[in-house]
């Protein structure tokens, strides 16, 4: 793959990685969140602590050997602490995790996420894998980032099922449900960066990826997006970001092969 053929997933992960500040603690799932966190550690956040729900604190990831499960041995490589699953979530409930990092099969204008069913719960058209730790992460981490590719079938007016509560029906409904901690801060996609308007808690466009237009973002979103006063533009992945990302994902050998081809 050449530097020109940047995939939507790469754009999402690289943009997301930039959101992670140094010295923070991030609760990451496998896939894009873990890759983004690993990339941040290689760049602006060398002291970022990555936590995985398998019971792992401070994993050191080996390029090309990123785990596909949060509780496989490669996920524990170089960890400072190994404990159990429940204990990790209790750390989150106490407030130790600065960032939670989620993907989304469906997301609505209030940041609610569905990873349970497409269609009705009783008779689903598609039974998705379910919450895993996503419901806990969005309920308990201090700040939650959502990262996904931007498609109309994902960005829907109302999710079929709230697996992981964002701002529920907006305004103060999240707090009213008892979710007194944590906040969903941003949604990062291959087209845009969005936050939540503070009063209505509705999704609001803040910036577009270089090359994407506001109209494109709107077309890929199945509901009316609010607009920030100024819409910024996000820098595209730099060469170093792409190289490092691909090194982490594919390993040294694969990257050498890619360069040679």
């Amino acid at each position: 793959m050449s530097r020109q053929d940047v995939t939507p997933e790469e754009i999402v992960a690289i943009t997301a990685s930039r959101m992670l500040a140094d010295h923070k603690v991030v609760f990451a799932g496998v896939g894009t969140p873990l890759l983004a966190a690993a990339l941040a550690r290689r760049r602006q956040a060398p002291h970022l602590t990555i936590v995985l729900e398998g019971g792992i604190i401070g994993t050191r990831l080996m390029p090309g050997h990123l785990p596909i499960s949060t509780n496989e041995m490669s996920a524990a490589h170089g960890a400072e602490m190994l404990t159990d699953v429940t204990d990790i979530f209790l750390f989150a409930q106490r407030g130790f995790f600065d960032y939670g990092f989620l993907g989304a099969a469906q997301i609505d204008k209030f940041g609610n996420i569905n990873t349970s069913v497409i269609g009705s719960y009783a008779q689903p058209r598609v039974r998705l894998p379910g919450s895993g730790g996503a419901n806990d992460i969005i309920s308990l981490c201090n700040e939650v980032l959502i990262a996904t590719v931007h498609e109309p079938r994902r960005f829907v007016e109302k999710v079929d099922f709230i697996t992981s509560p964002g701002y529920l029906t907006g305004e103060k409904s999240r707090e009213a449900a008892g979710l007194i901690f944590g906040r969903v801060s941003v949604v990062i996609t291959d087209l845009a960066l969005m936050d939540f308007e503070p009063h209505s808690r509705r999704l609001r466009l803040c910036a577009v990826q270089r090359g994407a237009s506001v109209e494109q973002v709107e077309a890929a979103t199945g509901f009316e997006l609010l607009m920030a006063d100024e819409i910024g533009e996000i820098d595209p992945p730099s060469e170093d970001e792409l190289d490092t990302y691909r090194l982490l994902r594919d390993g040294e050998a694969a990257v050498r092969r890619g360069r040679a081809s």
Partner: protein
Amino acid sequence: MSASVDFRSVRWELEATDRRMLDKRMSATQAMELVHDGDHVAIGGTLYSRTPMALVFALLKTRRRHLTISRPLTCYEAELFYAAGMADRVITSWIGIGLKWGLPQIMRHYVETGQAVYEEWSHLGIGLRYKAGAMGVPFLPALTMLGSDIARTVELREVDCPYTGQRLAALPALNPDVALIHAHRSDIYGNVQVDGYRHMDVDMARAARRVIVSVEQIVSSDEIRALPTTTILPHFAVDAIVEAPFGAYPSECYGLYHADLRHFDEYVNLVKAKGPDGAREYIAEHVDQHDDFAGFLASLPPGTLDDLVAAAKRLAP
């Protein structure tokens, strides 16, 4: 929500149970006599880590009926129980094989056609349910699952803190009838030790009414006493010990052997091609046609286990 067992009867049953310090070694087949039709069976480990596959295979052989399966994150074993017509309900937070293999086709089939129930809790929700069961209390309070549809579908109740007035989710105790656990080693009495992370095995086993543990190795009690902080279960919390080297295969066992991703590929390809019949074919070939789990392991391509051991040596700290 599944019918909850009253925490009081769970305790009274424990008090009345024979918990003598005996030699508890037995075969996986013998141990399965502790599992009955209609039981709630909890399966240790998570996803493809330290799954008690030797015990799962032995249970599959029995064709017990109307089981409820619970597990923090299920892997393909949940599909096998459905395909074999053994399970009515799975209590978990996540179904799949692993990220790499996409949506789990068999679970989808059974759940989408209404033949099976997937009772969904959050990951911490499941964890606190086992923990409440292990602690001997009927519920534990938490700040998760609130406001979600998963709370609604399981009829999660709430509780007010008597000091602060804070509203909290009340996670009801989950006391499995039987827990199946795979561990690194134990003595003949069932003092069980693990290395590495503990998943939810400790709470799951202490919550359960009967506990079957397979181990990579039976060691002397003196060897247990040399590493007492790695003991996760004392003998009086264990009913059966099954010696089963590589007993988590194709799952990984921390520090000892890696997961066999190719074996999962084989399974996934089979069910992609043939649906539930593919899963049944898997059971026929890998479970039913062998006398025991050792027979299954012996049928693997030569070098399979050696490669997984070598991979683990490169990965463990």
